[in-house]
């Protein structure tokens, strides 16, 4: 069943049904011309979005700001806790109370898991979660889904390989869940110590999703439609030599992509370090910069739905 989007908080991907996500994807597609600046859309003129970022995330913040501006709305906000009153120990409670009187929708990023839910519980204004610690980052998941859907025409039955740090990377947890909900076939490729946690795997199973786990990238990408790469962080390994070995094993370059179908798309939430070789950037496979752009139409769609200016 589709609930109304008007005034709704966007806290977790788990709050949405498949039908609702499909609707968001369709609206996102309609937003592309305006997101590119090819068409004027002033449907949110006079509305103000506040971005309150208790930890920096330039890409997410800029993408929200671009989305609001492309819809004719305005943005207020801060992104550097060092130079604001937060440094003086202002609480989330007081901050939310302040910004709710300045704006019509609040985009929040906070290092504490559960912060977005907490904020949403205490303000009448809609809250959009732009990442809360190890918790949720639903707009990232939506733009990832949108990218697969637009590039591959569908999500159901597509073979999606999730590669890298599957244990700690929150983006891949929400994405795995959402992909399973859409009936994609999942392959988890990671060194054993960084494999997908059991809770996430069970979530996938409960969605009726099919998956396999392996540590061999070469075999996994043979039949893949999508290769989703995440960063493996050095800090996860006590032994630097072990890290180098693992990082080397999973570096995506043109050579390893010769094992894959010519239509495979390579995605990455960015920022990328060394896990994708720059030589891949100029190939047809590289979709990660387009993926980053997709954050704009998807966030425009959410804002338009929340303000009830599209159906």
């Amino acid at each position, binding site marked *: 069943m589709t609930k109304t989007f008007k005034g709704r908080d966007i806290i977790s991907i788990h709050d949405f049904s498949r039908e609702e996500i499909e609707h968001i994807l369709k609206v996102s597609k309609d937003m592309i011309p305006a997101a590119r600046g090819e068409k004027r859309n002033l449907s949110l003129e006079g509305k103000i979005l506040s971005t309150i970022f208790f930890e920096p995330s330039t890409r997410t913040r800029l993408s929200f700001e671009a989305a609001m501006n492309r819809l004719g709305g305005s943005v207020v906000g801060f992104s550097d806790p060092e130079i604001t009153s937060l440094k003086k120990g202002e*609480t989330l409670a007081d901050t939310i109370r302040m910004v709710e009187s300045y704006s019509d929708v609040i985009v929040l990023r906070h290092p504490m898991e559960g*912060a977005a839910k907490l904020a949403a*519980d205490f303000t009448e204004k809609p809250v959009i979660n732009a990442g809360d610690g190890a918790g949720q980052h639903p707009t990232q998941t939506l733009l990832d889904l949108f990218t697969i859907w637009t590039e591959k025409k569908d999500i159901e039955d597509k073979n999606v390989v999730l590669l890298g740090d599957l244990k700690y990377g929150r983006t891949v947890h929400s994405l795995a869940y959402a992909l399973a909900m859409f009936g994609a076939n999942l392959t988890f490729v990671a060194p054993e110590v960084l494999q997908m946690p059991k809770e996430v795997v069970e979530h996938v199973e409960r969605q009726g999703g099919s998956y396999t786990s392996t540590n061999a990238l070469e075999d996994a990408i043979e039949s893949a439609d999508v290769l989703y790469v995440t960063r493996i962080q050095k800090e996860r390994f006590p032994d630097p030599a072990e890290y180098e070995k693992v990082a080397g094993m999973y570096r995506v370059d043109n050579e390893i992509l010769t094992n894959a179908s010519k239509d495979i798309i390579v995605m990455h939430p960015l920022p990328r370090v060394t896990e994708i070789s720059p030589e891949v950037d100029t190939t047809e496979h590289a979709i990660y910069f387009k993926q980053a752009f997709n954050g704009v139409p998807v966030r425009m769609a959410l804002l338009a739905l929340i303000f009830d200016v599209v159906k």
Partner: protein
Amino acid sequence: MRVVEGRAFFRGRFEECCIGIENGKITEIKKILKGDERHSFGSNYILPAGIDIHVHFREPGRTHKEDFRSGSAGALCGGVTTIFDMPNNDPSIVDVRTYQEKRRIVGSKANADFGLYVALKENSSTDELSKLGCPFKVYMTGTAAGLGFGEYDRLGEVCEGVGGDRHVGIHCEDKSLVGSGERDLEDFLQVRPNEAEMAAIKRVIKSTDRKIHICHVSAKESIPLLENPRLTSEVTPHHLLLNMNSDLEGFGKTNPPLRTKSDQMAMWEALVSGKIDIIASDHAPHTIEEKEQSFDVAPSGVPGVETSIPVMLAYVKRGNITIERLINAMMERPAEIMGLNKGRIEVGMDADLIAVDMHNVTKIRGDDLHSKCGWTPFENWEGIFPLATFLRGRLVAKDREMQETGKGKLVLGDEKP
């Protein structure tokens, strides 16, 4: 050997395993264990059982509201195996004699493990009291039992007199800032303002260098003061979940009062971030008749020992707090603060366990609870009640019904006074 099997919270994460229990203690934790008595919970959670360091079970003296049997049965059915009972009884628990008398009365009735507080007043015989090994309570404002601490100048000396390693919990509201004649919940906040709590905590910090536990923090102005490393603190579920705008009228009257929405949110933030250490229920039952009286005469206090874990687990499910932080706040840290061999699933610890199915969400109803008071401020709220509760390895409650009674032991203080 008894074996409890499920997905246990062990070394900071959930693992499917078997917990072996002998003589009430956890002796082994392994993937597979054989045992002559087996309790299997499949992939449901096994958590350490709750420890509630702040309850009022009303015995001796006001057993029409609650007694040790009913209170501790509620505790077990709500997943709490250890409680610490407050001293505002009739007679008040203020010296060795009243303590030992209470110990004798409640000892055989306790279904859960327990500790008993003694109230400290300005003229307490601290040398004698320190030998009891019990926890202590200071009321900075008057109580119905006349336990208010008189001369604040004596506060440091008395708290230090009972010994630095004893637990001292303080109800912080400065009596010079507390009034009377309250008409409703909003008015009650004028009568017992945020400043009263903040001023009292400041005074406590100035009065002594020893460690102090701040009971039921409720005002947002108090939070920065809690960063003092000598202080630990608790918040109640009702201060997290309710505010002065609730429609509970006299049923929502409690000390300290339900405050504003903004205070409520600050409590959540402080709890989740760890500035407030633990959750305690401040279970303080009064009968429906007593609470229905006009607001100014209705007694202060709300029940909560049986609902605190269930209602908070429902908030874990909603995504407001992680299960890890909740376990820390309701099991691990209370055990550390009281110095108990409980609160964690580890070899050598007491086998106090609860089994929880996170999908088993039910509506909380006063009629289903064990308290004699017969009501709850969380009527019709969602709760996740434990499937089973184990006290030192014994299955004492199952599906919210008692299985074994009278197995509670004194956990802090002299076993043979």
